[in-house]
């Protein structure tokens, strides 16, 4: 089994985290659908939003992944997008939240 990825999240945000993580899981499928349809604009917007929220919630990796999705979508780079979505899904499987 792959190692867990520990994310330290402010205790002030504890009430928001279940919903935030649930939306992230659902978003992976949305991104996959958009990629299959070649909707790079939607992926750009989604990646940009993920980039903006991830770090603030305590998930800096999501900011990085979101930035990759945004940049790759702007360039229409399908291969990079597939890699980013795979990393996104892997991260969401492995992330473990610790409230500080």
């Amino acid at each position: 089994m792959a190692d867990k990825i520990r994310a330290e999240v402010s205790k002030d945000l504890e009430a928001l985290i279940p919903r935030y993580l649930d939306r992230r899981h659902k978003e992976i499928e949305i991104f996959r659908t958009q990629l299959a349809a070649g909707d790079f604009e939607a992926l750009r917007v989604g990646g940009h939003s993920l980039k903006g929220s991830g770090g603030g919630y305590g998930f800096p990796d999501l900011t990085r992944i979101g930035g990759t999705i945004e940049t790759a979508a702007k360039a229409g780079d399908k291969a990079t997008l597939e890699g980013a979505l795979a990393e996104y899904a892997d991260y969401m499987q492995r992330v473990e939240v610790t409230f500080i």
Partner: protein
Amino acid sequence: MSLHALVVDDSEDFRLLVGQYIAVEWPDAEVTEWDPVTQGDIDDNFDLSKYDVMLLDYIMGKADGLEWLKRFRRRTDCPPVIFLTGAGSEQVAVLALKNGAFDYLRKHDLSKARLIEALRAAMTERKAAEITQRMARTAAYSDLNRAPEVARVSAGDSPNAQVIEINGYHVIRKIGSGGMSTVYLVKRIEDNQEVVMKILDSKLCEDNEFLMRFIQEYGMISKIESRHIVKIYDQGFTDRHVYIAMEYFANGDLRGRIKSGVVTAEVAIDLLAQVASALQAIHEHGIVHRDLKPENIMFRADDSLAIVDFGIAKMISDVNSLTQTGHILGTPYYLSPEQAKGEALDGRSDLYSAGIMLFEMLAKKRPYVATTPIALVNKHISDPIPKLPAGLERYQPLIEILLAKNPSERFASARQLQDYLAKFGK
């Protein structure tokens, strides 16, 4: 201060994040969310005046936050705008500031501390701007509007000195003047209570920075409940002046007591314990005083002491921001080494200043003296901790801890100092 914020961002997650941090800090705050993608443009009919601050994102779907910022800043009802940028967008942040943004925040590494710091600064700026505008709109006061009982105060000694009228107070006498304000002893008419009134010098009322500092003093102290902190009764403004009404101390200050020779070693320790109690209260509110000195320790009629003059006090988060460090403020005799070096501060800086006061109370002289401020500052940074005179050796370990050059070698908190002092005499 309560808060009414407008958050303009196309990310629901980010709007929720900001709203949550605001709700934790200000439970009574109102947060209005605006999603440009689903709600469209904010047009000229949208009333911005009811908001204390706006947080505005840069890229919002197809909307350009910079263009929105330029348009908003042309409006007279626009509150301070905190611009939200993404990773690698430092140029955008600079552009935003040039186009009237009050501050910017990086979304990808946003912390609660940074958000709250920015919001507090924006709220203070908003209040200062409101007061300045109101004073500018009001011409010379009308006799018809004058209340029956008005304190008439001469702002100076010359025959042409400006007259200050503050509703509800009767002036007894001028006490003194400092860097930005003049202080009077006045009587509150409603209950005959003697009160100190601090009035911001009129020439500074048009300067937003000084106004913000003046308002900040009230904002910070009014939150603290401690009998060792000066009570603030009122803050307001007339057509030309801004004032704070605060507690009057009948029994003078610590400077006077040190000079008169009444402070024995035992009394010094007791006074230090009271100062530590006051510091604990302000530090728990995230405030560093930064100007602790005998002149700012006042005594009531029952001989209890209180700390006054929060004119250069700062929220700890403010002190640590990059825009705030690098400026040395405060009286050089009591500056901590980190203050002297212009470094980030926390409550341990006030403990150092308290240590200097303790040394002075015990030894009847200051530990560091010099002929120039720079030389004095260097002594705080580099000179060894002086020894107390003979007969006071038992207090030297306490002095060594309080005056340690490295904050990590001092008491970690005012509470720790209190605990130490509680065991000291036993």
